[in-house]
Each structure stands twice: as structure tokens, then as C-alpha cells.
């Protein structure tokens, strides 16, 4: 299943170079990513931490990103708990479910981005009452 990405861009073509440059706007870091594997896989293998890594299979949403510019293709389903039609139309996708087709500029917008920013080791938000 291949769906076209729509982040303020022209319709995609099937052709893509073997490698493209992906810029993570939150941190400014860039990464040379393959176009035949998912965006998160490319970032992960190069040790880039700018987009948090979760299940890598579309179910948990921690790698949620907004694709600000560039062309991409969605190659696997994303849990609709986290990605709506509106999101898809606006280029808000899971980085584990899309492959880049051209140079991309992306923003990490997943909930874990905040968690990482706030994480002193072991910090847990305990919300409930005390132990009985």
C-alpha cells in the first residue's frame, strides 16, 4: 500500500534518489537517509536522536512528526488513535510509516519529545492516590 504524502508539496513521482538529506527542525541536525526504508529507520541507524524511537510499526505514536517540506510516501498503516485524516492531509505522520522521496524538513511533535526534554532519569508523573 503506497499513499501519497501531501505536505504543501506537488504530487509525488515514483522516482527518488537513493539517499536524501533530512533536516530535523527542532534541533537543526541533518541526516543522510535512504529512500528505501522508513524515515525512523534511517535516523535510528545513523544514531540521530532528534525524533524519539518507539515501536517502529505504527502503533505507539512517539515518532509523530510534521513534514514541513519535501516529498514522502506512506508505506504502512498508522494507528488511527494518533493519526487522523486531517493529520495525514497536513503532513502529520508517524516517522516509522513513511519513506522520504526527496530532501525533507521535519518537526518532531510526538508526546515523547516533551518527555525526553523533561527527563531527569526515572522521572515519573504519579497521578493517583497513595498506596492503601
Amino acid at each position: 500500500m503506497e499513499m501519497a504524502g501531501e505536505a504543501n508539496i506537488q504530487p509525488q513521482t515514483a522516482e527518488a534518489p537513493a539517499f536524501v538529506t533530512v533536516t530535523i527542525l527542532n534541533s537543526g541536525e541533518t541526516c543522510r537517509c535512504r529512500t528505501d526504508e522508513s524515515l525512523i529507520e534511517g535516523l535510528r541507524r545513523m544514531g540521530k536522536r532528534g525524533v524519539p524511537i518507539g515501536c517502529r510499526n505504527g502503533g505507539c505514536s512517539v515518532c509523530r512528526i510534521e513534514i514541513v517540506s519535501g516529498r514522502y510516501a506512506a508505506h504502512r498503516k498508522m494507528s488511527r488513535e494518533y493519526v487522523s485524516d486531517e493529520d495525514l492531509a497536513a503532513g502529520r505522520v508517524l516517522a516509522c510509516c513513511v519513506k522520504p522521496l526527496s530532501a525533507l524538513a521535519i518537526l518532531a511533535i510526538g508526546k515523547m519529545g516533551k518527555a525526553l526534554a523533561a527527563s531527569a532519569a526515572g522521572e515519573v508523573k504519579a497521578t493517583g492516590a497513595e498506596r492503601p
Partner: protein
Amino acid sequence: MALTGVLRPGHAQLRVLDLEADVKLYRDVLGLEETGRDSFGRVYLKAWDERDHHSLLLRQADQAGIDLMGFKVDSIASLDRLEADLNAFGVKTERVPAGEMLNTGDRVRFVSPMGHTIELYAEKKDVGNGLSYENPPPWNAAAERGIAPARLDHALLGGVDLDGTIDIFTKVLGFFPVEILYAEDGKTVVAIWLSCSCKTHDLALIRLPENGKLHHVSFWLDSWERVLRAGDIMSMNNVSVDIGPTRHGITRGATIYAFDRSGNRFETFSGGYGAYPDMKPIVWSIDHLPEGLDYVQRKLHQSFLTVFS
């Protein structure tokens, strides 16, 4: 008989985004046996050494996660008694009639305060483990197919009202705490490992800001070496691995956490120790969670606290 009431986790039903992709994962890579499909489109699977008809159900959906978890009880009399006990404790239950789930008797269902659908049942068809009940060999070819866990072992579920859920499992259903993880204040339970048997856990629970979440379902392997072999098989099949192979400090289990093709975490697990209800619970403070989770590396894996389906 010493072990009565709730015996063990008997089934978990997971939502998957691409049914056939995950059937392939659980059947061909994990090595479960497919035992049936029903009119709802659910696929039934069991581990090789389990004797009851199924322990895992997969359902096609547009969101990943867990639909329900079922626990087997020792008799219909216990099922009736626990239903009454739940109601007396203020827990609303409903009966799902026999046959709604293939080869399974009446189920008593309730929604835990953490938002998970929990079921009790007394009857499920014994289809055997492929070995004879008389003079059997210790294993057969199915025990070597794929990762080949022996059984569904436990699950870790997450939600908001941890304390209320612990109450139901310990005060009504007969579970006892084996290990407990406390927050900085030393009083707030962050996570708990509960047993209804002699295992270190039949069910673990973790406090989360969202209800109804799945952390993982776990499958039992007989040795640490089999856990490492599971890791090899995962890599051969491009399975997304989260943590391990390593050993948990908490429960002492050897482990790999990995994700199915829809992002539901599963564990291949071995070890632990014998737990009895008279034993004082082991307690962990949150600052020791890094080695509680990964005793070898002694580092906090952020995904443990943030990645759920």
C-alpha cells in the same frame, strides 16, 4: 487442591493494523500455532505446550492495543462465586455466553478501573499440546518452530486508577503482590507485579496518564539461551526490538521486549523465581528502576515509560 480460584492468564486479544502481517509474525516468527478463525474475523493462536484451544486472539482494527485479557478459573463454581464477589465489591459484570469465543465457555467480564476489559472463564476445549497424555516424549518438532514459547505467561497493563485495580485483583480475585515499584515519595505505587500462582507475575500493572493501555504481553521460554535464540530469530525477520536480550532486576526474568507489526509490544521471557503468598513483597524505589528494568546495562530505557499501544 492448593491452587484454586483464578489459575492463570488464559488469553489476550490484540488489535492489529494488518491482520495477515501479524498472523505471519505470531505464527511463523514467534512460532505459535493457528488454531482457528471465527465469524468476527478473529484469528486464534496457541503456544506449542499449551493444551487449551487458544491463548492469543488477533483482530483487525484501525488502532493497535489490547481488547481484553482473560483468566482461567478452576471451576464453574469458582466462576459463579467470583462473579458474586465482584458484584459485592461494587464491580459491575456481564456474562458473555459460551461460544462467542471459539471453544470457550461462559465468560464473566468487567472493566477494570484502569480501563481494561478483564474476563474470567472456567472452560476452554483441551486440544492438547501434540504430545500424548500417556508416556509422552518431552517435546516435539513444534517446540523448535520459530521462537517457540511454551505458553502465554503474563501481561503488563497501564492506566490511571492503579490503586483501585490492585484492590480488585488482590481483595476479590486472590492475587498477591510479589514486587512493587514505588515513586519518590515512597508511598505511591508506580507499578506492581501480581501473582495468582507460584510465578513472579501473572499480571503486572503500571500507573499511566491514559487508560486501557498495553505495555506488553509475555511469552514463556525455558532458558536464557532460548531468549538469545529468540533475539537471533527476531533479527533474521526484521522484528523491531525494544530492549534486550538482558535480565530484569525486577522478577529476575531474562527478557527481550519487541514489537509486533502493529506496534504492540511483546516479550520473550524466561526465569524468575518461585513466589508464594506468604513471602514479603520485594520493593523497588523509582531511582532503581534502571537496573530493575535492565540489570545488565543499568540504564533507564525511556521507551519503557513512554511507549504503549
